[in-house]
């Protein structure tokens, strides 16, 4: 090693020590002494302006407004659903958060892993099914919205062919397809649905391709169970109609968009955070529908839908809310023609939660 090299390396080392020392010396831990409860969120994507994470962030902001200075909120966005999620969730727990919402299904095991280590911190996992003393789960009965759009689609289709873009063949999505088809075929027995599985929640390119394929196959209405506005925009371009998902997509496709099924988390988040503030939080399993406000329909598009149909849709919403209409009211048959829900009864939550079959009339197979 030359003298020059030694000199420079030692200067670098010295600089590192000085800078490091400065940081260590000034490293005062910022523990806040107020009673303010800290609420943390883990997001799968950036909040952006539409879709799943956007709606969770809207819920967070609503909660902040409702509860004011008794809480403060933080979020970590774009957390991948892999080994990184544990660290992100743990960081929230470790930095003094009292309640942590993990807002995607695939954070399930990671949430439980961290929850085990921090028994005093409360966790809420969206759309999961594993609970412990400090882990709650919550989800919304999105299928109720699918009943409403199924009704509209059954009345609006002229080709009697509806294109359905589905994400993954999991109970949640299959339940949505069934609820949609049951409502659509009730008002229009000739209706057919064509399903394309895109195996993604968020991929504008794939979703648009799927929409175009369905339109080419004669679909005049596009339904999506994915997260972007690409299908709705593809419908707009092709001059057919569409329903949005998760958030109101009207701005992205004003001439195709009939309505969207919105996820509204604000009330739930407020209630859960309030329970933390008041010290009476307990582990629960919540599955809220239209009656709780968790599922909401976006304003119906008056340019496309007749006043009469809008009134019907609104009446349907009301009857779902008061319980007089159930999305899965018997008689319901499966594809083999077996009666699965008897006349006069409705599918119970167990059947809905594990729903892995199509109802009679859907000409397709659940991918196995």
């Amino acid at each position, binding site marked *: 090693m030359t003298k020059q090299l030694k000199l420079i390396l030692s200067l670098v080392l010295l600089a590192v020590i000085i800078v490091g020392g400065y940081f260590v010396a000034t490293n005062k831990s910022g523990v806040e002494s107020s009673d303010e409860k800290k609420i943390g969120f883990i997001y799968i994507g950036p909040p952006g302006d539409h879709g799943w994470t956007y709606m969770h962030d809207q819920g967070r902001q609503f909660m902040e407004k409702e509860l004011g200075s008794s809480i403060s909120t*933080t979020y970590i966005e774009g957390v*991948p659903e892999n080994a990184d999620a544990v660290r992100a969730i743990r*960081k929230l727990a470790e930095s003094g958060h009292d309640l942590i919402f993990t807002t995607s299904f695939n954070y399930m095991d990671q949430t439980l892993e961290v929850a085990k280590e921090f028994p005093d911190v409360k966790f809420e996992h969206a759309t999961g099914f594993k609970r412990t003393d400090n882990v709650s789960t919550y989800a919304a009965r999105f299928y109720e919205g699918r009943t409403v759009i199924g009704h509209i689609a059954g009345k609006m289709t002229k080709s009697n062919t509806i294109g359905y873009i589905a994400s993954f063949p999991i109970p949640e999505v299959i339940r949505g397809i069934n609820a949609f088809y049951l409502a659509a075929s009730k008002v229009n027995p000739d209706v057919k649905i064509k399903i394309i599985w895109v195996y993604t929640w968020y991929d504008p390119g794939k979703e648009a391709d799927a929409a175009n394929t369905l339109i080419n196959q004669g679909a005049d209405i596009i339904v999506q169970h994915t997260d972007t506005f690409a299908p709705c925009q593809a419908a707009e371009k092709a001059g057919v109609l569409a329903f949005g998902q998760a958030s109101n997509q009207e701005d992205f496709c004003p001439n195709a968009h009939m309505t969207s099924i919105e996820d509204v988390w604000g009330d739930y988040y407020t209630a859960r955070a309030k329970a933390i503030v008041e010290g009476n939080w307990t582990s629960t399993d919540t599955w809220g529908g239209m009656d709780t406000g968790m599922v909401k329909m976006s304003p119906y598009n008056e340019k496309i839908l007749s006043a009469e149909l809008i009134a019907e849709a609104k009446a349907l919403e009301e009857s779902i809310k008061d319980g007089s209409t159930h999305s899965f009211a018997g008689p319901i048959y499966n594809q083999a023609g077996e009666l699965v829900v008897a006349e006069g009864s409705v599918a119970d939550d167990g059947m809905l939660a594990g729903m892995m079959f199509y109802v009679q009339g859907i000409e397709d197979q659940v991918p196995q």
Partner: protein
Amino acid sequence: MISIVPRGSSSQLMFILAPIFAIFLTLFFGAIIFAFMGYSPFAALKIFFISPISNAYGLSELLVKATPLALIAVGLSFCFKNNIYNIGAEGQLTMGAIFGGGVGILFYDVNSFLILPMMIIAGGIGGALWASILALLKIKFNTNEILTSLMLAYIALLILDYLVVGPWRDPDGFNFPKTRSFGESGRMPILFDGLRVHFGLIITLILLALSWFVYSKTMFGYQLKVSGYSPKAARFAGFNKNFLIFSAFAISGAFAGIAGIGEVSGPIGLLYRDISPNYGFTAIIVCFLGRLHPVGIIFASLIIALTYLGAEDAQLFLQIPASVGFVFQGLVLFFLLGTDLLVNFKLRLNTLNG
């Protein structure tokens, strides 16, 4: 006007110092960016680079993140030294995870100390096989490996997609696109209780030491270096060019594959589509930042790993968007390329009549 002229002989010292300058320039410009965003630059840098590793858990997380980066990067150095631009390590990592993970799923209910070694070996073989496709294409058809390696990376990811959605899906998993969990015997042992740093770190350190040995003490390493510096000289010396190409690909593939199985049998424990946050691509930065040298790669992997952790802390404490971490990675690479240019070339101000 300014012209860029070669320095002729470039300084060995500056070659080593350039990455350090690049890091300091990154910190400096990072501070400026923070200042423009309205944050106190010192506080922001502290949260970005100090607070993530201010406790044992943070240090362990740094190692968890740096382990695959260092392992892939040192594997890539075998290719890059030989002027082979294999940029598809992500695919080789994925193949390693598929091969090794496949063993783990097959024996999920078997309890034996043999399972983990079998998984690791299968992972290495998977990665090496995937990379040897590239080697054969290059040897037989003289294809451009920059294109083929990238294309095969996406194919590997799609194969993983297919497996977790289709035949390997967890039968009890409500059709969610993931496999069942490996048994306890299929998991990397944890090094310290309560921390996630795992045995993969030891494997990585052993392979790093081995790579150093191969480079500096063996004929094979010498041949790799010579054929990288001067293909003509290598041919004149009678080195087997095809053998060198093939082994460079196979080694880098095997290392990436082992990194892949380390990730799934370490912190993850099962297979699904999103196993790697682009380790295979980020390792390219690590490799060049570390000057293709095992010791340099260790430091580089720690620094790049820190940019990930820092981005999370910056979000948490300052609500700075997640993308800032990528901005820092980009800055490091940018300044590294910039300082490299100045190491090998000098700027000359040409006067009009000069």
